[in-house]
């Protein structure tokens, strides 16, 4: 079943691809559930549609002569390579291959106008077979040729540039609309391509010489005496001290302080007290009560009583001053622009047109990238460090977007292909780069 990508929404083009998490981006749980449900729906639709057209393919069944008929499975000739990183996806079995326009040797993508959305075909294979194959590739990696993903040391950066790009690694670098840089690996493609070698040794009786008896070992060790005299050389150093005599004479200060004592004897010569007018009473002078002084005494006693009262009316006066506050409020206006568009998110998928290969076979690899967000992405660079088992076919790299291809050799001798796209990638658009490699 072949379906052009333009006939269906972009979200259904690659329903089974596991989104490799961008290093600086996190997906929320509800969004993942929504994506998972969407993928399930797309997978179910594709399975149904494929079942209707699967009769010619099922007729091409092969029976494993060594495993018995119970292990016979359908062989889908157009099936792509194994997506190892998509093992956790519930629709893992759905594999993708780029349609003939993209996988054929002729560079159709180079000249096809408006090829921003290349035609992508989706094929469905047996779920159990795909899972079993993925498991086998993980258990016996020496029988496979891998390409893609981020193997061993993760991609990281220092002041000199990218580090951790090993053989088989394929990553994409891009910047979002805010200028923040991101790096993201592709999925890992596994192609079954075992390669053998042999080591041999020849042993002939006519050539073998053996020594069954030790001829002896002679070792003369002669001690050579060595006299060594070491004479101590005395080292004497006279240091003439320049003596400095310092005499300090204390300048005594002597003082005599004579107490100037002043003695004065004060003798009480007498005491005179003048009574006040109100005290001019006989009672006060002599202590005898005179009847005539009763009124004045009563008045004085009452006056004294007033002062001795514990509670007396008191007046407290408070003066409050009214304060007036003047304030002026200036009308202010804040203007903001909120971008409700979804941030740009790059999805990248790597595919191979063959599931198995032998030495000398040419494999066409396709790297499909899509901006699933609304905002644009810039500075997109796709870097692929080929495996040692893959030999790049010269001038086979293509791209449906403008840019340049840089070929370089790594320190390990592997070839590094680097696609540098010159134009930003708008939201909900994508592109494809392809190249061919021969299996060594």
């Amino acid at each position, binding site marked *: 079943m072949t379906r052009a990508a333009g006939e269906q929404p972009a979200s259904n083009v690659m329903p089974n691809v596991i989104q490799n998490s961008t290093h600086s981006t996190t997906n929320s749980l509800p969004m993942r559930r929504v994506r998972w449900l969407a993928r399930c729906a797309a997978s179910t639709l594709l399975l149904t549609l494929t079942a209707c057209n699967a009769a010619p393919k099922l007729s091409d*069944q092969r029976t494993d002569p060594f495993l018995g008929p119970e292990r016979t499975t359908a062989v889908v000739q157009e099936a792509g390579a194994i997506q190892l990183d998509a093992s956790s996806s519930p629709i893992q079995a759905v594999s993708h291959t780029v349609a003939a326009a993209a996988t054929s040797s002729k560079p159709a993508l180079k000249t096809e106008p408006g090829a921003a959305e290349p035609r992508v075909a989706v094929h469905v294979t047996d779920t159990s077979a795909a899972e079993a194959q993925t498991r086998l590739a993980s258990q016996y990696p020496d029988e496979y040729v891998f390409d893609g993903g981020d193997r061993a040391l993760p991609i990281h950066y220092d002041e000199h540039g990218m580090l951790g790009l090993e053989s088989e690694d394929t990553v994409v670098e891009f910047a979002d609309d805010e200028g923040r840089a991101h790096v993201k690996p592709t999925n890992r493609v596994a192609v079954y391509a075992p390669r053998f070698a042999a080591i041999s040794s020849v042993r002939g009786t006519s050539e073998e010489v053996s020594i069954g008896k030790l001829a002896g070992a002679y070792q003369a060790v002669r001690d050579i005496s060595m006299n060594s005299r070491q004479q101590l050389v005395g080292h004497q150093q006279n240091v003439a001290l320049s003596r400095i005599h310092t005499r300090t004479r204390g300048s005594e200060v002597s003082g005599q302080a004579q107490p100037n004592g002043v003695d004065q004897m004060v003798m009480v010569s007498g005491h005179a007290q003048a009574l006040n007018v109100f005290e001019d009473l006989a009672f006060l002078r002599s202590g005898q009560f005179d009847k005539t002084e009763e009124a004045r005494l009563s008045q004085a006693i009452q006056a004294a009583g007033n002062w001795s009262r514990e509670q007396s009316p008191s007046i407290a006066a408070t003066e409050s001053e009214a304060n007036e506050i003047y304030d002026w409020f200036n009308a202010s206006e804040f203007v903001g622009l909120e971008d409700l568009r979804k941030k740009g998110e790059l999805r990248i998928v790597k595919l191979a047109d063959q599931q198995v290969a032998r030495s000398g076979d040419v494999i066409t690899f396709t790297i499909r990238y899509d901006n699933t967000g609304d905002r644009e992405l810039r500075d997109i660079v796709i870097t692929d460090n080929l495996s040692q088992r893959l030999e790049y076919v010269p001038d086979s790299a293509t791209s449906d977007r403008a840019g340049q291809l840089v070929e*370089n050799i790594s320190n390990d001798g592997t070839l590094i292909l680097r696609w540098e796209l010159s134009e930003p990638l708008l939201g909900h658009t994508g592109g494809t780069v392809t190249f061919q490699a021969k299996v060594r």
Partner: protein
Amino acid sequence: MPRHLTLIVAVGCFVAAVCDSHLFAQSTNSNGARHFPIDQHSPVGMAGEWAALRGKGLTSPLPFPEHQLAMERTSRAYFQPVRIELPCEGTVTFYSQPHEQPVTKAAPASAALLIGPVYRLGISGLAERPGADLYPTVELLDRLHPPSGMAADFPIPIPFTMEEIDRALDGAFVSKIIYLEDPRLTNLGLPDGSAPTEYLAPKLNLLEMADRRGRPVALVRLGGRVPDAANPEPGFFGSGAPVAFTAVTERLSTAKSPSVRQRPRANSPQVATQTRQLLKPR
């Protein structure tokens, strides 16, 4: 549990405890190098037997120690396709069970063998060595795990070079290990499409050397010894293990061997740093 079965399990547990880490690596010395007690000079069949005890020849892996059981190993025996390749035209004879007639096929000859037993082959009818008859032995040490239904498309190649045949005819004894290359240790200078053979000194342990380069899958011994027709030796023609022949292997045998066909070898691109503009469709 029957008594003999208990004894088999006990022996299997003992052997597994001894060689569980690796078939040819039982221990490590102070330098971290592994010890390989088996080499190409070990008795015939020892390497294959140890591989079978480790469950290498099963259709599906079994948990320990079930793969030690002979019954399980028999019921789950996996026939690994092999392809015998000769440097020139010739015939290859497969000797299987005593009551069956040997099967002779033109080279490259394909068949499926079990992992572990010793198989005797017969090489004769060599176009460049008329009258020469050789009887090599083959022990499979491991199997491949190709995609389902494609086992016959990926046999283990067992090539014999003319130099090896000549040395064997001169009376020498040739030992050979076929191994699966580690993809990250691939020798890029070797030609593609065939199993390149590297000759090492006989004092070296070929199994250890092969284990460093990848995964040993077959041990081949080739000498000048021929069966005595007057006094036939019962064990000369192998252990009597079955050999599988199918239509798929027949189809594979008719295909040209990678060692025979001449592929134009592509020149390696001598690129230092090349930059070219990609076409813009618009």
